């Protein structure tokens, strides 16, 4: 291991290490800690300018209730779920199909197709903005969930296909040879052999694409207009302008927007990290 592990025989050094690292962590997360604390501050605290000290009259749910009662944040939150969940499911289906073919069949143009999926994933969104917006307007999908779902599915399929192809390519080839020898049809191979083995890959992709799509702001402002469709990121940006001096309320709204991806991350941490670093370490 590098750096050399701190040996068990030096408990003092270990404790010192943990203390220093803990302090660094606290500074690292200071903005987040401050927002969390402020989401529990009462208006009284805010009025007296107590933004950073210990909350004098903390309110556990007051600001959150106010967010739900006086802003459309609950609606935005629901919109985000209605956009993100179907998108993730569709990405999983499409990328499994693509990945299976690209990993298990050799044909002319396969490399080109693969390069297209990978390269497209790195495109700056602005080069897509005008045509995609135009397409959605013409199709009558502008300012509906379908516009965002369709775009996110298309875009995320690029990255997801790369990931799935590499995962399926790493499965033992004998499985497929045996299936072919038995004359099992490709859909059955996919469903009965590949999909059961894909569970870790599906989990990793699900949590990653969920985070990417939930956190999108650009397409939310490009493809939606009304509060009944807008996801939580665009809603939060609006709220910040409208509730300019009520930072406790904005902080609570920020927390609400951040909670789903953060929860997903902690629940499925291993998968999240495995997915993100798949290209970094060769297995």
């Amino acid at each position, binding site marked *: *291991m*590098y*750096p050399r*592990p*701190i040996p068990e025989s030096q408990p003092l050094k270990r404790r010192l*290490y943990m203390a220093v*690292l803990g302090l*660094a*962590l606290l500074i690292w997360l*200071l*903005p*987040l800690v401050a927002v969390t604390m402020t989401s529990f501050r009462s208006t009284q605290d805010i009025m007296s*300018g107590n*933004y*950073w000290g210990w909350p004098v009259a903390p309110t556990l749910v007051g600001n959150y209730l106010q967010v739900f009662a006086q802003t459309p944040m609950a609606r935005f939150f629901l919109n985000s779920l209605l956009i993100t969940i179907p998108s993730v499911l569709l990405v999983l289906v*499409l990328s499994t199909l*693509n990945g299976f*073919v690209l990993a298990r069949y050799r044909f002319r143009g396969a*490399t080109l197709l693969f390069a*297209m*999926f990978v*390269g497209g994933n*790195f*495109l*700056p*969104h*602005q*080069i*897509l*903005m*005008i*045509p995609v917006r135009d*397409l959605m307007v013409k199709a009558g999908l502008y300012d509906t969930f379908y516009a965002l779902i369709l775009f996110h599915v*298309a*875009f995320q*399929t690029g990255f997801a296909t790369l990931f799935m192809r590499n995962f399926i390519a790493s499965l033992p080839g004998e499985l497929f040879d045996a299936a072919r020898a038995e004359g099992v049809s490709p859909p059955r191979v*996919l469903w009965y052999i590949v999909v059961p083995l894909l569970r870790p890959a599906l989990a990793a992709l699900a949590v990653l694409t969920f*985070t990417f799509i*939930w*956190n*999108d*702001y*650009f397409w939310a*402002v*490009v493809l939606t207009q009304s509060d009944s469709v807008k996801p*939580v*990121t665009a809603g*939060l*940006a609006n709220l*910040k302008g409208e509730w300019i001096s009520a930072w406790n309320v904005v902080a609570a709204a920020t927390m609400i927007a*951040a909670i789903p*991806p*953060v929860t997903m*991350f902690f629940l499925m941490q291993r998968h*999240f*990290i495995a997915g993100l*670093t798949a290209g*970094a*370490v*060769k297995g």
Partner: protein
Amino acid sequence: MNLWRRHRAWLYPALFLFPGVVVFATIIVASAFESLWVSLHSWDGMGPMSWVGLANFRELLDDPQFYTSLKNNLIWVLMFLLAPALGLAIALAANQTLRGMRLVKSLFFVPLVLAPAAVGVIFVWFYDPSFGLLAKLCALAGATPPALLSDERLVTFAVVAAALWPQVAFCMILFLAGLGNIDESVLSAARVDGARGWRLLVHIVLPQLSQVNFLAVAVSVIGALRSFDIIAVMTQGGPFGSSATLAYQMYEQSIFSYRFGYGAAIATVLFAGVAVFIAWYLHRLLRDEKA
């Protein structure tokens, strides 16, 4: 039925690929090309397009905002190159296996899963010159708090600093994964030979992390060039366009000024810049595939 039987060997994979390829090709790939086409026109987004050739690009060369955006993109890229370095530093500091380390590491990752829009909201408040934490810290030191987001010279640096927060976390994840995969035998051989500390890092550890180094630099540069969300939330390109990047200027020209042709021209320039890095990435990826 006979037809199906004769051709099913290739019909199945073709059928499987069909939905994904159609969606990706029509919405992503075709759109990118269409933007190049739109950039050669004058268009308000609704009426007919009229061909103007390279006029949008010529206008760009005389547009002072274009140079400001370009300069800001350069600042973004250069500052984002700190992300791999800082990410590696934190990864080295945190690469221990004591009890509780898993939690510590995952807490370090948290900024990465926050929406850039949320990070922007948090930092606007952090930077506020009257009540932000930065102002409080300046007051403690007896200095006048700078109005970072309304100062034309400082605003881009302030926005990039906010954007670095999640990016450093991203690089840290990559490096921790890389450090976990280091060849122990090479490492202990080097240690037996007396390599220590800095020299061990530079000559033995870093060369083994070349794949991670490459990935961290590539995603940071591409991320810097694509930056939009956090600028839109923190400054809307202001004051007076001084914090706009190409991505933001493109959005503003199209959505607010209805100059879709001009916007597409800006996007094309941005695309040309990113394409170099995409090509570099693909080249390495496909080369590794063959090996």
